[in-house]
């Protein structure tokens, strides 16, 4: 059996097995009270799947490895894939190229690890600059530009991704309308 250990999260000392019962125990090294909940994955034996299955006549071959037998088609591009090329995420089989493309274009939600909140940038531009309101002449168009330019990049991972964009856009339009009204008043007053 593979030796697996659980270390104290404070002192990194290995915890004795009798302390791993889901109750609070004192770490023998640092005297911190610590509780460890173990799950079956802790003892799971990692099985290595055989990826080498040579091509037999009459069978389809992998698109990327012509000498290997295809086991599944890519569900995005339809290419046949061997066990090595098949990447399964959330029950969907894809080839590495489709996966990389999806990750780059942020189309695969499960692969997205970072997201820039342009809606918050637009909101900050429209709200914070109200304290120094003359600046809104520059920041309101900038916020409107961000809302339109990055509308398609709103968060697809977490809920409520478009609310910020809508609010920022409305605020920017309101500020621009205010400026337009001010300009109108100025020109009208100057003419009369």
């Amino acid at each position: 059996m593979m030796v697996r250990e659980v270390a104290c999260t404070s002192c990194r000392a290995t915890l004795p097995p009798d302390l791993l019962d889901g109750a609070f125990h004192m770490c023998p090294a640092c005297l911190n009270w610590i509780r460890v909940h173990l799950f079956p994955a802790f003892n799971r034996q990692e099985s290595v799947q055989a990826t080498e299955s040579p091509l037999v006549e009459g069978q389809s071959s992998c698109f990327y490895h012509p000498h290997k037998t295809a086991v599944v088609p890519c569900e995005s591009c339809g290419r046949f894939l061997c066990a090595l090329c098949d990447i399964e995420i959330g029950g969907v089989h894809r080839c590495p190229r489709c996966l990389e493309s999806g990750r780059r274009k942020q189309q695969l939600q499960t692969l997205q690890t970072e997201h820039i909140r342009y809606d918050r940038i637009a909101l900050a531009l429209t709200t914070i600059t109200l304290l120094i309101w003359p600046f809104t002449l520059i920041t309101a168009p900038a916020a409107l530009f961000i809302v339109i330019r990055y509308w398609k990049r709103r968060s697809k991972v977490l809920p409520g991704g478009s609310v910020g964009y809508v609010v920022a856009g409305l605020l920017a339009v309101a500020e621009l309308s205010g400026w337009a009204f001010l300009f109108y008043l100025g020109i009208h007053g100057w003419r009369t």
Partner: protein
Amino acid sequence: MADLDTKPSDQIRYQRIRGLWRTGTLNLSSLFMGGDHLLLCDYRGGFTERYKRFYLSDIQAIIVRRTMHWLGGAATWGFFAFCFLVIALTTHWNRFLEIMVGICLLFTLRHLVRGPSCRTHIRTAVQIDALPMLKRVRKTNRILGRLFPLIEQAQGNIAENIAAAPGASPSSSRNVIAMGVSTAAAPSPVMARQELSWFHVFTFGAVLLSGLNAVWEVNYPSLTSYSLLLALFGLSVVIGIVALVRQARHHVHRGAFALIWVQVITFVLGAGGIDYVFTMVNIFNRARTEPQSRPPTIVNFLSPFQLRHMTGFDAVLWSYGVWALLLGLLGLIFVFMPGPAKRNPPPLPAETHP
């Protein structure tokens, strides 16, 4: 290449299971449940979100470690409330002091009501990550209670699976979990005798003596004993700072470690705060008794010897004496308390000579 057609399985609906929690100056984090995985979302600086996913079938362990932050927080706010109360009782009540005492007491109560604090970590085969939003034992228990059935659903029955693992003996489920780790695994940590930190001994000794001296000074005031008190106070702060530096490198008892921080912070902040408050009280009193005199443009803080003549300073000395006695006694107990401190390094492999 054509755009990927996003499958319905890619569209995961996340449900927030723990709200926003501050993990840095501008960083917040939140925990979401999304079908077969947990999503840890870090909001960096407010404009960037970073995601970490923990699949339920991959979670090996959840580790909860109790911390003393709740007691520290409650003690700190309680101390400030006590200081404001002492100032209010010895001078005169006003609205500002009432509000300050109220706010400090509210924060103290908040720490006590929310219960013991903790740090929670989640372990998978490749990483151990902190869950910074799970900071209180009670809340953590509640959330783990919701998560365990889901993990069990993803990984199978926890007790049965671990019992079935090779090397495990089928006994009670708790023991089974422990045995399942491996009977040959996890050598217990090597205990090392705790070395005595003389800086801590001197600091707590000076604190204890200054506390006794303060109580003596209240009952038998004299210039000599007050000078001695000031010297001991200054000495305890200076050695306390040295001990702070030292304990960063050397392993000392956790209690002594925490108390040195409490001592230095409360002494420095307390002394500064009391001097400030008494100086302000002095200025207001002078303005009241001498209305024709102009308020000073530069605030000259009272010296320690001027402070001694202020009304109500005896109460400050009393409270300082009690606090210092408590701190010094506890500190000395912790310093001399026997306990394991350091793990010995593993033995070097034996050299093989050809």
